[in-house]
């Protein structure tokens, strides 16, 4: 996974998020920008969203992190009044998403997961169309168009048809369009999918720039490194929020350190580690153990593994670990992990050896 090129922004952001609580509480009447209670959506027999609840504070950058089919887009569609909830409710900018849909629509900006520009129109015509639909005062349209086009660096292409744009340019134009009517809340559904690393970092630059303008941002992503930029992350899996907190707090939940191990026989090694009470998970490359203090735990770990140890690496937990921690637990709950019988069989094999 490519890392962000715009490291300075990330740094600035984390400083930003620490200074934020004071500025937020200084507002006299602070309504949550988004307030969600037991929101659920069912498509026939599929429970796409199973009763999620969360609040997003004004000015916050809130990320929904989850695998394909987790229900992220479905949640956004409900919050944006494009889909009616099967149960529960939500308010966006203080308005009910079902009964006051029109007020909600006026206050949100939206970048859909799929492209929604008219390719036969020019960038400028697409923006004009949007400006009229969102009731931007006519006298302000030229200035605002220039501002948003400048923000996403497309000013020189404003008279080209969107059909001639690259994927990244289309995405940036969509973001510019979503900002044209100065929304209070901006929804971004996987804004960086299909973009190259440069364009992704450029887009994040844009997103973080918007935060400077006090826009509340709700975004969904598959990418852990993107979620890292958020003030708070909700991890969604199978239509449920399995964890919701700041990136730092989420990482703290996992444990202080992660130890990656590669052994001659990972299955056997996992068995013995589990028997010794270590929080052990299987990764693509080997095993991962979460321990309170990596340096001290190493000797104990080495002693517990009864097969040949080929590699050992201690690192601070990343969101990757957080994700595994939470969705891993979910998978065990679903019965996807080792069953008691399997464990028995493995124990037998181990003792025979």
């Amino acid at each position: 996974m490519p890392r962000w090129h715009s490291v300075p922004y990330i740094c600035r952001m984390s400083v930003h998020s620490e200074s934020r609580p004071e500025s937020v509480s200084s507002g006299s009447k602070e309504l949550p920008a988004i307030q969600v209670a037991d929101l659920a959506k069912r498509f026939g027999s599929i429970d796409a969203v199973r009763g999620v609840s969360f609040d997003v504070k004004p000015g916050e950058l809130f990320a929904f992190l989850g695998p394909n089919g987790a229900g992220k887009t479905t949640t956004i569609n409900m919050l944006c009044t494009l889909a009616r909830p099967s149960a529960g409710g939500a308010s966006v900018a203080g308005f009910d998403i079902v009964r006051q849909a029109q007020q909600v629509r006026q206050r949100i900006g939206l970048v859909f997961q799929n492209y929604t520009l008219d390719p036969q129109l020019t960038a400028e015509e697409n923006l004009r169309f949007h400006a009229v639909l969102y009731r931007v005062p006519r006298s302000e349209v030229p200035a605002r168009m220039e501002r948003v086009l400048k923000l996403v660096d497309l000013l020189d292409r404003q008279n080209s048809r969107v059909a001639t744009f690259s994927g990244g340019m289309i995405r940036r134009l969509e973001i510019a369009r979503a900002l044209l009517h100065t929304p209070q809340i901006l929804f971004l559904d996987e804004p960086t999918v299909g973009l190259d690393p440069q364009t992704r970092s450029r887009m994040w630059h844009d997103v973080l720039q918007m935060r400077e303008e006090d826009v509340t941002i709700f975004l969904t992503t598959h990418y852990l490194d993107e979620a890292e930029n958020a003030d708070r992350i909700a991890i969604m899996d199978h239509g449920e929020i399995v964890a919701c907190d700041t990136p730092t707090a989420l990482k703290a939940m996992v444990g202080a350190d992660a130890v990656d191990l590669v052994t001659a026989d990972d299955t056997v090694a996992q068995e013995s580690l589990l028997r010794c009470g270590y929080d052990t998970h299987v990764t693509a490359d080997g095993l991962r153990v979460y321990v309170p203090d990596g340096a001290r735990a190493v000797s104990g770990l080495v002693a517990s593994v009864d097969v040949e140890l080929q590699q050992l690496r201690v690192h601070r937990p990343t969101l990757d670990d957080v994700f595994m921690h939470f969705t891993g637990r979910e998978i065990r709950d679903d019965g996807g992990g080792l069953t008691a019988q399997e464990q028995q069989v493995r124990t037998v094999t181990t003792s025979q050896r």
Partner: protein
Amino acid sequence: MTVRENDGVADGRVGHDARRTAGFDWVAEVRTALMVAHRELLRFVRAPGRLLSSFVLPLTFLAVFGLGLNRLVGSNGNVEFVQFILPGVVAMIVLMSGIGSCVLVIWDREFGFLREMLVAPPHRVSLVIGRMAGGTAIASMQGIAILLLTPILGVKLELLTVVATIAIVILIAVAGTAAGMFLASWIKRMESFSAIMPLVMMPTMFLSGAFFPIQTLPGWLAVVVHLNPLTYGVDLLRRVVLSAQVSAADSHGPFTSGVALFGYELPILVEVGFVVALIVVFVALTARRFGKPT
């Protein structure tokens, strides 16, 4: 959950558009409709294929049926066969163009632009009206362009006839576009559209009296033709276009106009009423279907 009213906290520049426009805003709705129509026109002029086909098709019909069969079928003293089918061809092309305007709706659904419109604040009826206005404008212009041929084909026209003709062309265009919107509210995918289009268009065109007089048809065919809304559109247009040419004496010749129901010849205004009623039904059904979120 409890939902608190937005008390309009002064939040700087963000959201000031929102506060400005509480309640129903007629001006904004009309501007929306005009913008949607404007886009429809932009898309039309940027698709040279559509422009070309809207001329080639009617001219082919006129050449094949009109000039080709004219010798064979002959004239009615005052009205020649090619003159007889000219209003039919115009009505047909206007209807086709109107119904065809639903392509853009289906296209928008498939390529996502529909969501950009549906999530915007304006009322969905404004969007439907805008699309209909755009579709109507395009369809009427196509019909009127073909009508420019009338002098060449020797049809006598008076100023009043020209005005009435344009009015009726627009009426047919509105009806066609309304039918197109209705279809678009049901057809979700491009493939289904290409399958359904000929199925709808062919019988409507050929069983409408556009190409033959309907007074002399066998019973079952007459029933079908009288159930076809286009029959009334074609007849309206024909009555008006040929009004200067047809005298009472011709009314029993081979190329007569007028539709009779149960032996009763319908006045022009009743025919107009039929078409208007049809438009109202289609628009109501379309607005109902587009108005619902999933």
